[in-house]
């Protein structure tokens, strides 16, 4: 559905995206994770053509819908007018669906966009995207700035998209959320993808081992105590004594290692 091969993008001397490759299939929810500045937003922007990539290939087999990181709409329009404008510009847009979603989200159609809080503008933007019939939905931090109840509803809607056979590529900081809804994840840091696999596989692939200080270990250092060090290693490298750990620990250990 979406194929990215060897994507590279620099801004002047700084390499933001350094040879990224991945694929997203129909019906799959793919999460691109990583700390700020990892290159997630630049990757998405290169995919939808807002930024011009330096090299690499992007193949999209179908129509896409995009939610930007900065969720800005036309401030002087009312919500209703924004729906109509979206209808004018967007292919396969369902106005009625949009009105229904906006009402579910309790957004006043007569309100001017400028008077809405940032979270509400995000909700409007999401309502517009969910009313668009695309093959892949590319979302940059879709739940940022939303209250917990709304976040869950959006997660459900995202899952609903995959039920309909659509592909979803999204970025997030919030691991707990990603664990609810991602099929596959890619952990990105400083322009590279450090690890990419099914979330379930990653959870079982890595375990924590405790070793004496100074002992050589093939893995990611996680913690130091007085006499010992804790490493996150692949299970096959772990030997007989190991512990399972949560995804957040695995994520942090992997990302931290690269940042050194």
């Amino acid at each position: 559905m979406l194929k990215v091969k060897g994507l590279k993008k620099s801004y002047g001397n700084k390499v933001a995206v350094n040879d990224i490759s991945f694929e997203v299939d129909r019906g799959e929810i793919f999460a691109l994770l990583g700390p700020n500045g990892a290159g997630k937003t630049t990757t998405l922007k290169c995919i939808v053509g807002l930024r011009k990539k330096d090299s690499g290939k992007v193949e999209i087999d179908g129509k896409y819908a995009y939610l930007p990181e900065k969720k800005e709409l036309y401030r002087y329009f009312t919500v209703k007018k924004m729906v109509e404008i979206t209808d004018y510009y967007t292919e396969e847009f369902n106005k009625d669906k949009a009105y229904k979603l906006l009402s579910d989200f309790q957004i006043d159609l007569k309100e001017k966009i400028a008077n809405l809080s940032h979270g509400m503008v995000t909700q409007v933007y999401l309502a517009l995207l969910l009313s668009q019939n695309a093959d892949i939905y590319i979302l940059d931090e879709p739940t940022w700035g939303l209250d917990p109840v709304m976040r869950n509803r959006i997660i459900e809607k995202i899952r609903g998209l995959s039920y309909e056979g659509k592909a979803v590529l999204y970025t997030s900081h919030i691991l707990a959320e990603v664990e609810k809804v991602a099929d596959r994840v890619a952990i990105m840091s400083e322009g590279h993808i450090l690890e990419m696999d099914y979330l379930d596989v990653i959870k079982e692939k890595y375990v924590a081992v405790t070793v004496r200080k100074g002992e050589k270990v093939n893995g990611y250092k996680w913690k130091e105590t007085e006499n010992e060090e804790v490493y996150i290693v692949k299970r096959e490298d772990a030997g007989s004594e190991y512990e399972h750990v949560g995804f957040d620990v695995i994520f942090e250990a992997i990302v931290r290692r690269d940042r050194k």
Partner: protein
Amino acid sequence: MWFSIDFNSHVPVYKQIKEKIKSMIVTGKLKKGAFVPSIRSLAKDLGVNLNTVSRAYRELVLEGILKVVRGEGYVVEGLDAERFLGKKLEEFRKMVLTLKGDGIEYEKLEGILREVYGGEENAES
């Protein structure tokens, strides 16, 4: 069908689903020959991804616990209760060893067993 899923556990969701279904078979909640919910319907009820239920069912079929009936869905084939329970009993054994090592006396453990099973014994007599 619904049961609680812990998304943040180090146990993958598909595994949790597998374990729960096996449990339900062992306790008789799911009888041999009964249909389990369709992938889509279970995914929706639990609030999980289709791929997740897919994988759980796929592995249960490979393990011989579920069977695919063409055009109808997934049906309970059976479960080697002993093997399933065997693992759990092994975990129990490990726990007892740990407690023994901590200095817990046999009588304490016996008391707990009586308490947990006691109610049922009285009901039967």
